[in-house]
């Protein structure tokens, strides 16, 4: 190999293959972007409230304990489908009330149980976060997670 493959040839292989793979990758991501905006996340409109909920999600660093669509941290439950776990697809109002009750009850203070901070969200902010979680649960995720447990 060493006689046949010169350093310059190896360098050309590197730049050539990188350029090809990078082009393919960027093109596919562009197509994916289009698909995600127009198809997989298009079930419900991305309202102002959903956007605000996502902003709160980020600002409060929810993903430093929880996962969402499997990404984040692994200290607390998956929230991509929490809306469905609370039965939001059958009784939206009950799910909303249930989640709000949960937010307000934190931290539980139960000894030996993981604690979620109290974020002092206003009623409107809670609604926005819940709208965001509901919207996220409607993304076509290739049927992930395998079950409601998330």
């Amino acid at each position, binding site marked *: 190999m060493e006689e046949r493959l010169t350093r310059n040839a190896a360098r050309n292989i*590197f730049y050539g293959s990188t350029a090809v*793979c990078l082009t393919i*990758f960027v093109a596919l991501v562009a197509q994916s972007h289009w698909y995600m905006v127009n198809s997989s996340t298009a079930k419900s409109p991305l309202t102002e409230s959903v956007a605000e909920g*996502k902003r709160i999600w980020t600002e409060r660093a929810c993903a430093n304990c929880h996962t969402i669509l499997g990404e984040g941290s692994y200290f607390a439950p998956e929230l991509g489908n929490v809306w469905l776990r609370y039965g939001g697809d059958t009784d939206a109002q009950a799910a909303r009330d249930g989640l709000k009750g949960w937010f307000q009850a934190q931290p539980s203070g139960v000894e*030996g149980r993981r604690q979620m901070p109290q974020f002092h969200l206003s009623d409107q902010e809670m609604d926005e976060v819940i709208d965001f979680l509901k919207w996220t649960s409607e993304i076509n995720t290739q049927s992930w997670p395998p079950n409601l447990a998330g």
Partner: protein
Amino acid sequence: MKYQSQSVALYYFYGALVLFLVQVSAGLLAGTVYILPNLLSETVPFSIIKMVHTNALIVWLLMGFMGSTFYLLPEEAERELYSAKLALGQFWLFMIGALAAVVGYLFGIHDGDKFLEQPVPIKLAIVVVCLMFLFNCTMTMIKGRRTAIANILMLGLWFAVLLFLFAFVTPSNIAIDKLYRWWVVHLWVEATWELILAAILAFLMIKMTGVDREVIDKWLYIVISLTLISGLIGTGHHYFWIGAPAYWQWLGSIFSALEIVPPFALVIFCFSMVWRGRRDHPNQAALLWALGCSVLTFFGAGVWGFLHTLSPINYYTHGTQITVSHGHLAFYGAYVMVNIAMFTYALPYLLGRHPFNQRINMWGFWVTSSAVVFMTVTLTFAGVVQVQLQRVMGQSYMEVQDQLVLFYQMRLGAGIFVVLGTILILYSLMAVPKRAAVQPA
């Protein structure tokens, strides 16, 4: 030390080591909260501890890369740095920015997704630091001798910085947000940082084995070609379940499965160079770290990555303790170890001494590496149990977590040894014995 301006690397190395200790201490605390969940829950919640843990890691690795570059570049370019003063100013801006970010986190000032929680002013400061750095290094390079190692290192650094700009992209659509978040996180650790890693290891191989540069350069190009062929489209393994098209399950699986090849090539490369060089370099500790780095990169990034990268498997393991186990060994094996290898190699030269504290350093190597490996295995078992109970049988998250306590206890035990090992490493590198032999200039 051949060039005066290389000495700025000292600041970066020591700064990185201090943040290394912050990182593992926060990790130990986070591991403790898993066992004692009420600990600090009202003052410093888990989310903040974890944020300090991951951010300190990334910042110290970057600081280490920058220091390594400032050390390596003058020798490669055969000239002084373009501006040592700029490099020093950059260090203080970076260090103060990093500490301000950490203090800010403790007071709940943060913004952004995992790994990218820095508030926008801190993110902007990072960009300024990076621009100072790239300007300084690029000017040094174009005015001096150009080598493959310097080229590849700078290519990796330039792209790493360009990709960081995607950290400013935070669309309201969380799926799109995730699509581009991986342009920072994945394309850092599985593409651009690997160029940096390969270039640093190649530099160490040239210096420590005495093998011909021609041979090493060729290997370097082969390793990084394999890295980017597999790693770029391999980003697709993050696109399985975030709302991206189904074809990523094929592309992501196939290409990221190939990601096991470049670290394997890296192992062959390092060991064959050392074998071929047949030279007894006095700095045995640095050699140990460099070889260990290739081996644990292979296991952490390669084997543990492959374990859960195929989409039918990832469907069950995604976001479980399996992910956590891979994350720990991959970051340690690749990026922690390459930095410590470089620090161990360069510090004696920077201080004008013969290699010092070699035994303690090697103890640090074995204690820390064994502990991280043990932690990884423990978390892997936790992950397997979690997958079975939660993903297959459908038990609720917290119910399952309660059954993993034994694994978390063992992980905490491993964490204690990681911190002890880190202290050994820090001591061996920072506490220079007064009687250490002076090396003739």
